[in-house]
């Protein structure tokens, strides 16, 4: 081809980005379920004819890089049977290279003069796809057959003609058909906007030009990525992270990661990680890869395009049959937590070579409570992704009210929840003394407390980090683990972090979740007294905590310098003796 013009490249890159963003906006605005429209748990992408992502909407990072395997699968299955006006649907992790059943792909091929030139692709987390629990993220599932409706890639629409059979099957198999079909239509609306805008682009620049620069965009992203990697010191960096384990008697699930930097390449291997488990936290390899890409992208400083070229310098391997590369029929309904832990583990490994670019450990992704049941003659399912808290960094305190790096999701407004569901939120706010102590303090734990207002229903829960609370860095202490309490007429009890069997809830029952908090960074005894005084004024810590952990003694509302010095010396001596 002719010489690449750097201006034209940037122009078309921006145009691709604009298309993907427009798709994301269309999808959000037309969507029905809170998890799509408020939490924004979905992604949109423009892919080239080979299914390689050219641009992705600014929504869920963990979906970056996960489209490609699904696209390969789709193109292999349909090969010569892909036509203008087709719309594909699929969700199965094994039969469609999907992620977990609630994440449904809607994909439309884009044609120019009869030739397949690109793909409009969307994936959205649906409120329910059937299965043994409302919300379809059953932690207690032992096989994927229990998790809900499995769809290999199918034509939801063929040459412009809708396949009503598929719509009927979906509507019958999900608990909230209006939400699911409404969100599917929103995904189709996003594909339509992609088609329209892509056609405009082709009309303006010509198809050959657009495709040539699409190709160059991958090369460009790869160059940027390799330049970043080349600056890292060569070496192997290992880290071990965990998920607490399933049910009442959890056995730790191990994430063993080794990050090997070799010149301008990175190899990431998960040998030594746990075997796949009898519970919905397994993930097929595509999602593990996507999570790794998210972590690596987050420590790179260049503005690398969200396209396939980024992935070419990165190899991800994991032994088949492990929790990070599960094989049929392992269940994976709650696999999001596994993706979060993959990201955390890679950050943990990178803390060695890049201590200034990662933070101490945070909340570890969302806590996901799901309430389901019947109310006033209608079924309801309420799920939300509750986040989040970050660990402290080398130069700043951790924050609360921020998402995990893997999923930039919003909370659901309390007033919306109470208007639309038989639930009342009783408390939502931060907990004093909870942030992991350090020179820089970890973000606080926060509470979200729900009162159930329907006659009867079930609650499922996905959370983590009780047995392995968020770690600190450089002498910072670890954060707190979570605490989930269910209070009923019979009394109050602590729920396991990963509830394998949903519990029954009745009117007036209260579910209270305290989130994990972030780890600290550096020795808490090095935290300046002035910052402690500010924390006290804001009620982020109490005087007892200030004295016990930070060694700052208050007297009459002001710090006592002499007593503080003594107290800090005592704590240091105790630490040295221990």
């Amino acid at each position, binding site marked *: 081809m002719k010489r690449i013009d750097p201006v034209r490249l940037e122009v078309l890159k921006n145009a691709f980005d604009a298309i993907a963003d427009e798709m994301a906006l269309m999808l959000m605005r037309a969507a029905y379920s809170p998890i799509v429209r408020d939490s924004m748990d979905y992604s949109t992408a423009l892919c080239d004819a080979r299914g390689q992502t050219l641009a992705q909407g600014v929504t869920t990072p963990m979906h970056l890089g996960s489209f490609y395997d699904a696209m390969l699968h789709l193109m292999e299955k349909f090969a010569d049977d892909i036509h203008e006006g087709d719309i594909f649907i699929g969700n199965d992790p094994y039969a469609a290279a999907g992620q977990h059943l609630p994440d449904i792909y809607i994909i439309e091929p884009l044609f120019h003069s009869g030739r397949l030139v690109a793909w409009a692709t969307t994936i959205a987390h649906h409120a329910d796809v059937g299965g043994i629990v409302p919300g379809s993220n059953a932690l207690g599932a032992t096989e994927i057959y229990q998790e809900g409706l499995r769809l290999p890639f199918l034509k939801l629409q063929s040459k412009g003609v809708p396949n009503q059979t598929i719509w009927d099957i979906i509507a019958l198999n999900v608990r909230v058909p209006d939400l699911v079909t409404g969100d599917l239509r929103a995904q189709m609306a996003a594909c339509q906007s992609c088609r329209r805008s892509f056609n405009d682009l082709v009309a303006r620049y010509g198809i050959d030009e657009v495709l040539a620069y699409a190709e160059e965009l991958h090369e460009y992203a790869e160059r940027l990525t390799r330049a970043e990697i080349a600056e890292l010191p060569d070496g192997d960096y290992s880290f071990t992270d965990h998920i607490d384990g399933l049910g009442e008697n959890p056995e730790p699930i191990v994430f063993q990661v080794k990050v090997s930097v070799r010149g301008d390449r990175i190899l990431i291997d998960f040998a030594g990680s746990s075997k796949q488990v009898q519970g919905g936290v397994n993930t097929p390899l595509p999602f593990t890869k996507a999570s790794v890409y998210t972590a690596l992208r987050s420590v790179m400083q260049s503005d690398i395009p969200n396209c396939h070229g980024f992935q070419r310098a990165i190899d991800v391997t994991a032994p088949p049959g492990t929790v990070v590369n599960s094989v049929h029929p392992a269940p994976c309904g709650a696999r999001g937590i596994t993706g979060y832990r993959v990201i955390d583990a890679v950050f943990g490994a990178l803390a060695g070579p890049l201590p200034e670019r990662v933070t101490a450990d945070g909340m570890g992704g969302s806590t996901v409570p799901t309430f389901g049941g019947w109310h006033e003659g209608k079924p309801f399912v309420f799920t939300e992704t509750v986040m989040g808290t970050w660990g402290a960094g080398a130069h700043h305190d951790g924050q609360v009210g921020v998402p995990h790096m893997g999923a930039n999701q919003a909370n659901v407004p309390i007033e919306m929840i109470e208007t639309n569901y038989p639930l*009342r939120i009783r408390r939502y706010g931060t907990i004093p003394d909870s942030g992991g102590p350090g020179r820089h303090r970890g973000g606080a734990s926060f509470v979200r407390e729900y009162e159930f207002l329907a006659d009867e229903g079930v609650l499922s829960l996905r959370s983590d980090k009780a047995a392995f609370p968020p770690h600190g860095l450089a002498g910072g202490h670890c954060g707190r683990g979570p605490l989930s309490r269910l209070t009923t007429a019979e009394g109050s009890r602590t729920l396991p972090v990963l509830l394998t069997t949903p519990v029954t809830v009745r009117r007036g029952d209260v579910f209270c979740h305290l989130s994990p908090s972030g780890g600290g960074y550096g020795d808490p005894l090095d935290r300046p007294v002035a910052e402690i005084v500010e924390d006290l004024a804001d009620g982020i810590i109490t005087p007892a905590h200030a004295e016990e952990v930070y060694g700052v003694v208050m007297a009459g509302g002001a710090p006592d310098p002499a007593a503080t010095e003594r107290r800090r010396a005592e704590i240091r001596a105790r630490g040295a003796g221990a």
Partner: protein
Amino acid sequence: MTASTLRIAADVGGTFTDVAMIRGDKSIATRKVSSTPDDYSRGVVRGIVELLEVEGLSAEEVGEVLHASTVATNTILEGKGARTALLTTAGFRDILEMRRVRVPRLYDPLYRKPPALVPRRWRFEVEERMDHRGNVLTALDETTVHRALDAVAAEGIEAIAVCLLHSYANPAHERRIGEIIRERFPAMFVSLSVDILPEIREYERSSTTAINSYIGPPVRGYLNALAERLHAAGLPRQFFMMHSAGGILDARTVMERPAQIVECGPAAGALGASKVMGRAGEGDAISFDMGGTTAKAALIENGRLVTTDDYEVGGGISLSSRLAKGGGYALKLPVIDISEVGAGGGSIVWIDRAGGLKVGPQSAGSVPGPACYGQGGDRPTVTDANVVLGYLNPQALAGGSVPIDAGLSRAVLARDVAEPLGLDLDAAAFGVHELITNVMTRGVKSVTTYRGRDPREFTMIAFGGNGGVHSVSLARALGVRRVVVPPGSGVFSALGLLYADVETSASAAFLCPLEKLTTDLLAPRFAELVARASHEIGRSTEELQIERRADFRYAGQAFELTLPFEESAALSAGDLTAVRDRFEDEHERLYGYRLARNAVELVTLRVTARLAGAGQVVSDYRPAQGGEARPDRMVHFGPAFGGRVATRVVDRAALAGGPKQGPLIVEEYDGTTVVPPDCRAALDPLGNIVIDLPDPAQETRP
């Protein structure tokens, strides 16, 4: 307010304060003075006084002063607001801190969100609770209110915001707290969320209310100071402020709800654009405003600016601001839907490590400014590229007041762009031009294609210091066929103020299935909104033009579409069908489908009240006398036109004799307009430069 009295407008920017008036013969008079950041009101009055002197008028002849300023925005951006307390429902002290959780940037573990406007120590909980229907679950415990107010007194608090859960459904508790506060602190600046934004979603309502209190005392101080200075200069003490939705209101009203003026700066220009285009007979237009740091786009449909209430202040500039929320403070009041991108004359050009050419969003600002200013700027900017290409005068800008050293532009562009990329200098400079156009394309798309509007169906009106330089390229990239550059385009925001109507709006949450709507249900609610709006304007309802609108959605969706709802005054069964059809048409236009079997519901009622009259006057054009002859320039218009093209440099008046084929450069005191070889430019009777682009269908793309 009578038509015969003189109206004079002052728009305060970071560097300059622009003053404009319309003379008795409807021609424009303007004055530019330096802004006075220590107290902007000083510069405003000086500019007005100077303009009057130049025009030989006395202060007594001024009937009305109109004003727009960034004082409210700057208070937030600089963190210089009042010491503000927030009173909220027990259990929800941290709503402002938790926000909506989303952050504006992906892949940044070191991202820091902006600190809450009200620090935790000044956020107080009171015992009370409503449900979503407005039923009292826990009665207000006034001892907890007094306990909070004890702390308020001890902490030297200057303003209080009150936002309780579900107060939009039942304001009783907030109102009672308001009474208690006024009893104890009669002079305290107080905002109740039911007065500021009686709508569902607690974070957005809390944030908007907190903003109102936080900026209240400083804005009040500024407006009072300005009133005093005006009075001292013999000008009317009473004056009008532009608000973010493009209307003007008495400054005394603004003091109660200052949150509504946060985005008034860019609003004035957009409003001016809508009026100029209306007078030119173009109801549908894209308003394009390009200055030194940013470019802004807004959409005019059927003569009206499109507004939104999905807005954040201080969120920084973002290419996809609609998606990447969370960088600023949510402000859910009507603002003109203006998208802003970091693309201006001062935008810095750079090359990333993979050899990609980038422009902005960093700006060289006015100090040191572009390299060609010779004030120490050492990095190439968009203006430097424009100098190299021949678009801008290579000796001086602004009538000679800003000297230009074109050699410096060539040197930095060659060193930092052309040589690293292996391009010749013209190709590098044109690349910069093309790229900045491309960045701005995205800004325009976010108010057009992102809303299901096709930019090709619109005319573009361009203004701001750099609007005329880049408008044709931008129009071409979007498929827009006609560009209008109005007179006074460099001081256009001040002109826009002169064109504004006294206008305000009010809204209230009202969730109701469409089929259950009746006149009995709607009439009292709309009447209350109309009363609120007319109270704010200070005129009786009969004197006002009232527009009724409502937000509708399919039951279950969370995003609504705002549509006219005039039928609400006397509703029949047939009307409901018409309303449903209108909603579904718009839904289909945006999203490509309709759901005939799904229920439609009403969510929010809206009223806009307007006192028409003064703002109808739009200037006539009087050509400036005796423009001196300027030398031709060799100008580069891109590879499609070969190398450099000999180009005539003219003033606006030179276009009066009928359409002229490009290439042309129109140089004026306050701006430059570029007309490429394949375009034609003419002057319309209003003095607008009208540029017609060739039909893209006839054109073979370079």
